[in-house]
């Protein structure tokens, strides 16, 4: 098993009503599998929201395998400016 920390921003924070979640996952879990868990926790509130993923402050491709201690952020469409 591995522990990961998920930080929540914008629509993800609004849907889950929290700033962060710590989860214990099976070793070998990928970002796609974790995104599915997060979307299920949101109970439909993220269904219309596209999400990119960053691990340890860098965008990563889908299906990246998570490692012990990773900081994960599912990034809704950004809105700077």
């Amino acid at each position, binding site marked *: 098993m591995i522990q990961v920390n998920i930080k929540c921003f914008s629509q993800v924070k*609004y849907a889950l009503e929290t700033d962060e979640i710590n989860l214990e996952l099976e070793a070998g879990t990928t970002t796609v599998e974790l995104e599915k868990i997060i979307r299920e926790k949101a109970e439909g509130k993220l269904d219309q929201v596209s999400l990119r993923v*960053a691990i340890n402050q860098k965008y990563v491709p889908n299906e990246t395998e998570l490692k012990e201690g990773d900081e994960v*952020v599912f*990034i809704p469409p950004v809105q*700077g*400016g």
Partner: protein
Amino acid sequence: MVTIEIVNGPLIPFPSDDTRKEDGAELIFNGRVRSTENGRKITNLEYEQYEGMARIELNQIAEETVGKFMIHDLFCRHRIGKVKVGEVSLHVVIWSKHRKEGLEAVTYFIAELKKRVPIWKWAILEDGTKVPSECTHG
């Protein structure tokens, strides 16, 4: 040279520079908060960042812009936290020898910022309700 700052509080513009002898263009962009979000009246936007990554991405885009276009310097300040309607949330200054490459560089920099930098807006409505902004256009 690139200067990037993410600031929580009033945004002080970079001063105009009369000492530059090789730059024919000094381009200044100020992005301001509009009074409506998707047709709803607002009093403020509240900008939220993914601290650390927002600065890394902004700096990377600025370096890319300086490398891609014939410009000399790019300075950028982006506010986070509450910004009132009418106030500046994004301030960019680019110096270049000629106007054309400077204008193209400003356009590229802001377009990439709006695609990649993990900063988001929360709309503060007139009744005080705070909701994620639905504004995602470039």
